[in-house]
């Protein structure tokens, strides 16, 4: 069988691999990658040995901050981030669900004090029956990740 590269290699930048199928589009939206000047190559529903199907996102000349990586972990806890330089993987790390997220999302509770005051939001994360729950440090309400991310 002829093997064919389904997503083109990049010279420099970041490759987010092993994204659960269907989550890639959410990550593009959440990190506002389409609004940036970066060149992006994406693959949706690609075959994956471990996952059956996966999404992949390659962003040229762009690194991710810790906060962005944390947001990624919320949607794609199984993803890996590959830092590419001159077509080589120079750094590679697996995403893991963080214990907390600071300043990444607004609190869905419209009466939470964080909407009116000079503080970052702060959520603690926990898994519950396969879902991720985020609990606001301030208003103490718990939300599913989809509600927090308004997806």
């Amino acid at each position, binding site marked *: 069988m002829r093997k064919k590269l389904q997503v083109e290699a990049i010279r420099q930048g970041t490759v987010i691999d092993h994204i659960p199928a269907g989550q890639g589009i959410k990550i593009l939206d959440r990190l506002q990658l389409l609004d940036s000047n970066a060149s992006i190559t994406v693959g949706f529903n690609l075959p994956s040995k471990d996952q059956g199907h996966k999404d992949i996102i390659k962003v040229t000349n762009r690194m991710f901050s810790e906060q962005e990586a944390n947001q990624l972990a919320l949607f794609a806890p199984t993803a890996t981030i590959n830092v590419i330089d001159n077509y080589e993987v120079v750094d590679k790390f697996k995403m893991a669900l963080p214990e907390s997220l600071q300043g990444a999302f607004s609190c869905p*509770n419209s009466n939470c004090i964080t909407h009116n005051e000079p*503080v970052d939001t702060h959520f603690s994360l926990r898994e519950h029956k396969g879902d991720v*729950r985020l609990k606001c440090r301030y208003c103490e309400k718990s939300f599913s990740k989809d509600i927090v991310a308004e997806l």
Partner: protein
Amino acid sequence: MENRLYKRDIISIADFDRNDLELVLETAAQLKNSPRPDLLKGKVIASCFFEASTRTRLSFETAVQRLGGTLIGFSDGGNTSAKKGETLADSVNIISSYTDAFVMRHPQEGSARLASEFSSVPVINGGDGSNQHPTQTLLDLFSIRECQDKLDGLKIAFVGDLKYGRTVHSLAQALCHFGAEFTFIAPKALTMPDYILEELDEKGIKYHFSDSIEETAPKVDIIYMTRVQKERFDETEYKHIASRYILNVDSLKDAKDNLKILHPLPRVDEIAVEVDKTPYAYYFQQAENGVYARQALLALVLNEVV
């Protein structure tokens, strides 16, 4: 007993472990039996009610005065700089620099936690929106312990609006430390929220749902009543629902001798006035106990040794 509450912020009942709760209850019992007008001598306490609440404010202010402290503050945020657009963070920063402790009530959830990050003195939450009201929970626990002589292994029924009732949520969470068993009696639309039930599941706490106060009364030690608010239903639906969640003398005919009825007050018509004269009624003592519970908290937060 070591005072683990000295200089601590009192924001949420979730911040208390069993030892902390017992310390407050023990101190409240001591202060109820032997008044100590010296414990806040020379201390200035801010009582800042950005939202009006007569009972809670008067209870706090009585507690401060009974311990010999001095009060500054306001009973309504309408005349403060908040109205001019000052952030709560700035208000807290300034007012706390004048005082030894900062008691506050605010209509927004999370305001007390935020205040604790900007205050130079301990913050005591007197209610932040629909979130927490830890001193209400402490007075509820104190009252339960007082009328049952124990807190461990009690059977508690919560009745009424269990969805929006923050007092019910906090009390259920606090009672988890004492191995309670719960029965929830509420209209479907106002049943206990999932996140509380999940917490109870995780802690292995037993709970049941029931539709009838009368059938539940013989099985429990405490009935904690709350008000079903009219505005949550249309009029016909409300009339139908409210009649099922009203406690009257007939509902108590097979009750256990030690049963006591609590209510965070104010009551409207969910407890018939005739119940007041029965030995089961404990809600007025409960309200009075608010002063002792708040005295205990203030005394512990501001004194290394009480």
